[in-house]
């Protein structure tokens, strides 16, 4: 019954409807950092022009649970011209770094497979933040807790699809059950490959399968996704082992140190 989303970036037009729909449904404010005061004007005025293609919001944040990236690939002669768009959010990893890291059980997986932050439990320790390989989960100074896409937890538990998928005019974001979505993705991949285009699905293997996965026509890195994401906790055993061994080493060293001298001293006393 796992729900998820399939993002077909090849039909995304970069309209950002998904970004706005997410804010609207989830009641998220415009990013306060994007606004400043201007003289003679009693209300905040946006001042976040970046010059980075059409992307002025930059990244995911506690108030931007979805973010559309713009990648211009045009050569000087204007022969090869591509403008790639990719709408990004939490991937609802099957093995979720953020969830694994949380010391308070604030991050949980629901019966539909989505990963959500329980605001009333989170203590704002921020450990989940660097534990997400995708840079998704973000801290809010305002609430003192972390926030991210919930896969529209309230909607999907009431039989609706996600707000971003609903708003997406091109069908680039599809919401549904993961196996169905994978079938759709496979078919689309085969279609593109059949036309000789290079394309790949991102998210089948990563983190035991991302519930929100992508169709890319270039390396994941081009879309701002890690090429080889690792669920950080997979290093836990090795790290612990090495640390324990070190501890043992120190213990032995100490033992040798303290015990030998002790023995030596006793011997010395006897002689």
């Amino acid at each position, binding site marked *: 019954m796992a729900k998820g989303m399939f993002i077909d970036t090849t039909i995304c037009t970069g309209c950002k409807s998904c970004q706005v729909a997410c804010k609207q449904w989830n009641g998220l404010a415009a990013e306060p950092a994007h606004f400043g005061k201007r003289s003679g004007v009693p209300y905040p005025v946006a001042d976040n022009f970046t010059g*980075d293609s059409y992307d002025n919001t930059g990244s995911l944040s506690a108030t931007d649970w979805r973010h559309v990236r713009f990648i211009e690939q045009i050569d000087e002669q204007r022969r090869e011209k591509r403008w790639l768009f990719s709408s990004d959010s939490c991937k609802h990893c099957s093995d979720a*770094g953020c969830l*694994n*890291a*949380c*010391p*308070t*059980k604030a991050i949980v997986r629901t019966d539909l497979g989505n990963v959500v932050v*329980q605001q*009333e*439990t*989170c*203590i*704002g*320790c*921020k*450990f989940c*933040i*660097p*534990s*997400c*390989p*995708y*840079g*998704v*989960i*973000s*801290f*809010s*100074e305002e*609430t*003192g807790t*972390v926030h991210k896409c919930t896969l529209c937890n309230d909607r999907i538990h009431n039989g609706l699809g996600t707000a971003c998928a609903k708003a997406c005019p091109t069908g680039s974001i599809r919401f549904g059950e993961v196996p169905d979505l994978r079938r759709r993705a496979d078919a689309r991949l085969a279609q593109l490959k059949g036309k000789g285009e290079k394309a790949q699905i991102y998210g089948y293997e990563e983190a035991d399968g991302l519930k929100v996965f992508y169709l890319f026509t270039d390396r*994941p890195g*081009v879309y*701002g*996704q*890690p*090429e080889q994401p*690792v669920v*950080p906790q997979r*290093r*836990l055993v090795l*790290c*612990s082992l*090495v*640390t324990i*061994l*070190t*501890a043992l*080493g*120190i*213990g032995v*060293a*100490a033992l040798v*140190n*303290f015990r030998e*001298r*002790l023995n030596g001293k*006793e011997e010395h006393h006897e002689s």
Partner: protein
Amino acid sequence: MSPDNVQVPEWAWYYIAVYFFVAGTSAGAYFIGAMEELFSSAKEREVSRAACYVAFPLLLLVPIPLIADLGRPGRFWHLFIYNQGGYPYLNLQSPMSVGSWVLLVFGGCTLLSFLDNLVADRVISFPLFSRYYNRIPRKLYALVGSLAGFFIAGYTGVLLNVTARPFWAATSPLMGALFLVSGASTGAAAISLYLIWRQRNAGEEVARLESFDRALMISELLLIAVLLVLAGHTAQLLVTLPFLVMFWLGAVALGIAAPLWFKYRSRRQHFGGAPHLAHYLCILAGGLLLRISLLQAGQL
């Protein structure tokens, strides 16, 4: 846009690195004390006593930065009790969760040892319990406490290693080991400082401590070298300001190399005197700068 967009937790160094340092030092000290307690003769207790007097008060400082860095400090108890279920919660995959619990255990052990020593030194007394005093399983909680101490000193490094921040991830699996060794070293320095402060000449004991510390500091240097090799390009930050000063000059040169050199030079000399004081302070400062550097190098 760099493909590596893993977010920064923005842990404040003045809270988190200080916590790493204080907890590591406390744990290192306790461990050394416990070793003495467990393995040395019952007569020579200067070091283990000093360790107990160092470990517990240091540990008392720990919750302050730890809680202060939380977004919702008032909810710190959620670390132990799942607020929605009311039951205790431990997440074995999360160094932070396990660390919190172990900190609690460690706190208990240091407290007991602390009281223990106070009683032994006749600073306080429990007339009611004096009958049982000799029967308490001192060695047991020294053992538990030293294991916990190990954990405390090491887990903070493991915690950094099991994130996705490039520098922290690349230095896996050595950060825990390094923090552990460094904790033991600063712990030793703290004990020594305590002894200087209380003007206790512990003679042989201190000599043992010194030689132990030398081994620690050599391992520390080795670990740092391997760690930097592992880190590769993710360590680029370390050759820029302010890391050049903080890490190379502070943590490595002043905090390890110089004291080590000093230790070798003064190998035959007896304990006491000003140069010692400075060199222990260097070790402590170096330990702190090491934590700050490695924390910030993963956050910038």
